């Protein structure tokens, strides 16, 4: 079994992360902006600042890198292609978005069900599309 092409994981991962961040802007930065504001005000908390938004985007890049590492690692099992990228993206979304959002935002009682649901569903689109885009750049030949 060939080794993982680390250079291509980094290239694909950064692209995946950038796509995640770009898609996150219209979802959380525009569409859900009021909902985030209202939920933060209800907690007596200020809106997210520019510094925090930069950190969220850096976390998006790390998510993209991990998604493409998983894609590369499961490729011998499932073969290269979009189906495998979707599998990797769904796993990243389940583990990294769905479970933490439901647990930490909704069950912990910090944020509303409405905001938790929409930001989590938005995350599904972001992560799966980002992983497909990044995986298209991953090669081992």
């Amino acid at each position, binding site marked *: 079994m060939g080794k993982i092409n680390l250079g291509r994981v980094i290239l694909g991962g950064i692209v995946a992360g950038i796509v995640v961040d770009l898609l996150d802007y219209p979802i959380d930065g525009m569409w859900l902006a009021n909902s985030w504001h209202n939920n933060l005000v209800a907690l007596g908390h200020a809106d997210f600042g520019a510094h925090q938004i930069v950190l969220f985007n850096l976390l998006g890049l790390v998510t993209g890198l991990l998604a493409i590492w998983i894609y590369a690692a499961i490729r011998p099992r499932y073969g290269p292609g979009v189906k495998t990228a979707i599998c990797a993206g769904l*796993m990243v979304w389940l583990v990294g978005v769905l479970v933490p959002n439901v647990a930490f935002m909704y069950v912990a009682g910090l944020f509303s069900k409405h905001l938790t649901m929409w930001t989590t569903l938005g995350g599904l689109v972001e992560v799966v599309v980002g992983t497909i885009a990044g995986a298209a750049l991953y090669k081992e030949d």
Partner: protein
Amino acid sequence: MGKINVGRLILGGVVAGIVGDILDYLVDGLWLNKMWSAQLGVWGMAPFSMRQILWFEFFGIIIGLCAIWVYAGIRPRFGPGVKTAIYAGFVVWILSTLLPNFALFWVPHFFSGHLVGYSSLGGLVEILIGTIAGAALYKED
């Protein structure tokens, strides 16, 4: 390439989740309990109820199942064994614990760096040991 053994994945995943949950009880339920209660109080919230804790335990089982799916998925690439289980556990820990704790708790300043740091490091131990235990039960022959 053989298919994933779904029966063993479920067995190993449930065991991984139970081990993670037991270790989480020691870390968050006992060691960090006072810290969690004090910091929830800052936001005017009561300590976590039994219902919330049961939800967290359920999510622990889901994380265990995902970790063993990642283990099974990357096994043809890295071979069976503890090293591969550590890879799977580590990537699942970053996605399910480190990034969400950082993004949802620390960046917005909801909880202290101390609590987030200790809880995240505890999560690393929980998920790594849980994944190694669950992976030991996963077989494809």
